């Protein structure tokens, strides 16, 4: 294969390194490991929402063919960590924790696992699971947020620490919008939404020895999973191996350790064989988190010439009774626009449901629906173009932290997006444009998310065949981590990408954080870069002993080419790998940690995006078609236009779902979901999405890391739903403040 130009790897739209494996089915996901002696487990869920399990009849299930065990809280072995959880002084003081499965008889939410059937085939386990019969003592449950809004409370983290981002925030005067000249006050609701990645949550648990556990797990963080289950079983972390080489999407629901994982591990102990447990699509609604139903109120005032004078943003999000889940719903409101007075109040309502977990663009996407809708409402009140209104309130430094932005190219995004969507066609007056029975409108929504960076370690080694092997415990849940790391390594080493292997997804590899919060490229990218530089330096050192040119060379100038090491590509300086590799193995390997420096103290670091939508709304049937969607991002350096573009498009399609169709609905009388499969819970199909246009400013941020990246995953969805809602208003004059915007709301 022809080698690509060696200095142009970063930014090249390279195909995914694992693309072929994925499309041919060769990529192995957590439910696809066939270990000898494997068994299959199926969870039985509670049919009541709150109360006690008084008895459970497992006899028929136990007698069913192929059944090896039926585990309930009556017979489950003790999980040592369940008793000590929360008592570890080194743990941050959180409130509550994941449900401790099979520990007691309390029912805390509907479909809470009450039994696990293990059998020699999945079909037999599923059949027997239906034979388990439970008796309950029911108590009155609460599953409706609005009905429980009066009991909403300040999160414990905020009570303990008034500087916590969950604490009430105040700049200028409290609720100053109420006395503003031109003001609005609106309430917004987003329903529960469920991540629903294509791959169902699954785990294969294998006790390779009584104190050695291997987990093939769907997780976004191999090390977090290792830590959690080592703690549950009082094991040294190195005794637990977590393997997540491929993850079929997650969108956040594999950021947490869940009860089904504990259950599989318990079961593997009980039957003393490996156990595979895969949730059903229905169980994906109840057992592995969701974007919480959230109520918000936003008050805003402005001067007649379009300067915001005050914003108050309040929200109540739902959480479970056993775990306080918080997210940054109000963060964007504190820093996005130049307003002298800002008040935010974040509250939780604890309901009898399972715990939520961050879902793509998490709280910020929820909050942006309120803030960006309110911006549109205010622009309308002021009779101003919404883009112009945003420009008049643009912030050149962070008004919350009073620090300069590390970089901010949001104006450039505005310009790119407005041109591509044809913003000049937008009419100030709603309902002005039509094509037959279809009303046409344009709307915009802005997104931002912190450019987070954490520590990461990468191992790099030159192999005898002249290729370089890199290893890191990070996961790749779909964004193309393996691909972009290969590119970064290729560019740093001066080697073609074909000569590089980037291994990930195993807890035994050098440390990296969990893949979430758009932080992987920011964190692992520089570690790859530094590991590659260290490797070059090491090789230079070895080469120097036989070749004087290397003794004085800088590590940056050392290049690796086919079979040889050179200084700056100069053929006269060539040293054959074969010669270098005569050294003991360790000599050609390095392990390097890269950490964020003090820049975070000096600068406020965020990625930014803007989404522009053109919609068509049928005036009789209320159907909405998004006819154009343009997403523009200031995400720093774009390492791979193709995978980055995929991220933006995927986020935009997720935003269409959020705006127009996704809603998980509970019948509060029973506390059970009435939407529990893809026939009832709609996600967009191809026909719902236009060909999303993506544009990047592609300006490096010199402060986040040496690569200049800022993160993409979240800003891809944050702001999309309000862009569509605002476009619908522009088309119809109808302001819908409760998502999703289904046809019934528009007729």
């Amino acid at each position, binding site marked *: 294969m022809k080698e690509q130009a060696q200095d142009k790897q970063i930014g090249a739209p390279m195909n995914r390194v694992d693309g072929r494996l994925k499309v041919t089915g060769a990529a192995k996901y957590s439910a696809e490991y066939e270990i000898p002696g494997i068994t299959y487990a199926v969870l039985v869920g509670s049919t009541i929402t709150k109360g006690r399990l008084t008895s459970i009849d497992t006899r028929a299930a136990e007698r069913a063919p192929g059944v090896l065990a039926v585990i309930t809280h009556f017979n489950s072995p003790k999980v040592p960590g369940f008793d000590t959880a929360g008592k570890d002084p080194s743990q941050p003081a959180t409130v509550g924790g994941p449900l401790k499965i099979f520990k007691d008889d309390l029912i805390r939410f509907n479909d809470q696992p009450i039994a696990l059937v293990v059998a020699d085939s999945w079909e037999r386990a599923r059949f027997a699971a239906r034979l388990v019969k439970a008796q309950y003592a029911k108590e009155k449950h609460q599953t409706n947020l609005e009905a429980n809004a009066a009991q909403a409370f300040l999160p414990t983290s905020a009570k303990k620490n008034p500087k916590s981002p969950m604490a009430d925030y105040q700049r200028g005067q409290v609720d100053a919008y109420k006395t503003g000249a031109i003001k609005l006050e609106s309430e917004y609701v987003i329903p529960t939404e469920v991540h629903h990645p294509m791959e169902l949550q699954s785990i294969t648990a294998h006790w390779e020895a009584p104190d050695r556990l291997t987990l093939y797990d769907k997780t976004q963080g191999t090390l977090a999973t290792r830590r959690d289950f080592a703690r549950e079983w009082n094991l040294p972390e190195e005794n637990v191996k977590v393997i997540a080489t491929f993850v079929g999407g997650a969108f956040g629901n594999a950021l947490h350790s869940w009860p089904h994982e504990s259950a599989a591990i318990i079961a593997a102990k009980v039957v003393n064989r490996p156990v595979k447990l895969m949730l059903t699509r229905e169980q994906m609604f109840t057992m592995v988190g969701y974007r919480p139903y959230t109520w918000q109120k936003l008050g805003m005032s402005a001067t007649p010439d379009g300067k915001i004078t005050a914003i108050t943003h309040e929200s109540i999000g739902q959480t479970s009774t056993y775990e306080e889940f918080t997210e940054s719903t109000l963060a964007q409101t504190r820093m996005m626009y130049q307003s002298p007075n800002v008040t935010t109040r974040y509250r939780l309502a604890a309901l009898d449901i399972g715990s939520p977990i961050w879902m793509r663009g998490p709280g910020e996407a929820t909050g942006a629906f309120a803030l960006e809708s309110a911006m549109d409402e205010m622009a309308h009140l002021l009779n101003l173009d919404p883009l112009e209104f945003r420009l008049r309130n643009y912030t050149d430094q962070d008004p919350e932290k009073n620090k300069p932005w590390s970089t901010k190219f949001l104006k450039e995004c505005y310009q790119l997006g407005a041109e591509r969507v044809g913003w000049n066609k937008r009419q100030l007056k709603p309902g002005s444009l039509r094509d037959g029975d279809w009303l046409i409108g344009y709307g915009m929504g802005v997104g931002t998310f912190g450019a987070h960076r954490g520590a990461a370690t990468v191992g790099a080694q030159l192999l005898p065949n002249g290729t370089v092997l890199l290893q890191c415990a990070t996961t790749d849940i779909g964004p193309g981590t393996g691909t972009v790391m290969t590119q970064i390594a290729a560019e740093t080493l001066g080697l073609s990408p074909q000569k590089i292997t980037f291994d990930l997804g195993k807890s035994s590899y050098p440390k990296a954080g969990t893949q979430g919060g758009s932080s992987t490229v920011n964190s692992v990218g520089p570690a790859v870069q530094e590991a590659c530089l260290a490797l070059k330096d090491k090789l230079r050192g070895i080469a120097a002993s036989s070749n004087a040119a290397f003794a004085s060379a800088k590590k940056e100038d050392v290049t690796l080419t086919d079979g040889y090491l050179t200084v700056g590509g100069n053929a006269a300086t060539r040293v054959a790998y074969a010669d270098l590799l005569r050294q003991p193995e360790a000599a050609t390997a390095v392990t390097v940690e890269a950490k964020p420096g003090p820049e975070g103290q000096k600068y406020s670091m965020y990625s930014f995006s803007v989404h522009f939508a053109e919609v068509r709304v049928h005036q*009789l*049937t209320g159907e909405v078609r998004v006819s154009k969607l343009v997403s523009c991002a200031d995400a720093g350096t774009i390492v791979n236009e193709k995978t980055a573009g995929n991220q933006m498009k995927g986020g935009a399609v997720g935003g269409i779902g959020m705006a127009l169709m996704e809603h998980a609905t509970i019948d509060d009388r029973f506390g059970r979901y009435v939407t529990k499969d893809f026939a009832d819970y709609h996600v*967009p199909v191809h026909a719902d999405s236009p060909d999303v246009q993506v544009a990047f400013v592609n300006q490096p941020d010199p402060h986040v890391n040496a690569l200049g990246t800022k993160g993409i995953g979240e800003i891809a969805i944050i702001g999309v739903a309000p862009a569509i809602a605002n476009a619908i208003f522009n088309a119809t004059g109808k302001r819908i403040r409760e998502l999703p915007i*289904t*046809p019934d709301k528009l*007729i």
Partner: protein
Amino acid sequence: MNQFQYVRPTKRQAAIDAVAKDTTAKFIAGGTNLVDLMKRGIMTPQKLVDINRLPLTKIERENNGLRIGALALNSTVADDKQVREKQPLLSLALNAGASAQLRNMATVGGNMLQRTRCSYFYDLAMPCNKREPGTGCGALEGVNRMHAIFGFSDKCIAVHPSDMSVALVALDATVQVSGPRGNRSIPFADFHRLPGDTPEKDTNLEPGELITAVVVPDGPFTKHVHYQKVRERASYAFALLSVAAALDIDGNNTIKAARLAMGGVAHKPWRLTAAEQALVGKPATEDTFRQAAIVAMQGAKAFKYNAYKLKLGPNTIVQALKTAAAA
């Protein structure tokens, strides 16, 4: 898994006998509905009588109509040249249903007999009179966004989910069945039932009766037809509400004949004969369509979460008629 027997007769009589003599037996055609229901434990037949070897796939002319075999695939019927020429409305309705993959498996007989998509029916832990008579209707005071506005009872407010059936009831089709007591024809409008006190019965088929064909009489509805389906996404979703409209319009823009039916509003495909009469003899204008839509909605009554259908119904009728007239 649930144990069941499986037989695959090649003779019609053998298939009928197998089901007539065993109350726990069920025919299976494409399996796209029955297998799902079995996996969830909602239907638990002890015996499956696979009818796919019976010669019931033909689409042929019969007297003054088209005779469509019960085992003709939804996709085959939708794409059939004769169907598209003589009964384009049927083709449109079929293509509005499910997905290409499902239409390639689903049969005409199975489509008519698919069961409701009421989510209480689908959840064994919820009350449902249709699934388990006497347990109550979960939807009546529950989340009834998808439910009926016509012809319901306090025992059941479910809707029939088939798109194809809405077109067939509009087109005056008849259903040919063969049973233990011989053959008979059932007018399509009498095929499905209203729930009344026995919501567990979807249709008037007798035990062991096999659908052999559907006959659609020729009519003047070869041009001005439309199937308007309103759903929560652009494709691959059941209807919130749908309308099948067929018009015969003369050179003076006067409506000579009309057919109108709605889906997603009742326990059966809902034929709107009064509205049809309100159209005949009138000019094919939006005004006329609006008048007919008002007539169509008489007697409709909504529940807590489906009041939108009272407005979506007439709007969709107007839209369907407008599109049909312009076709």
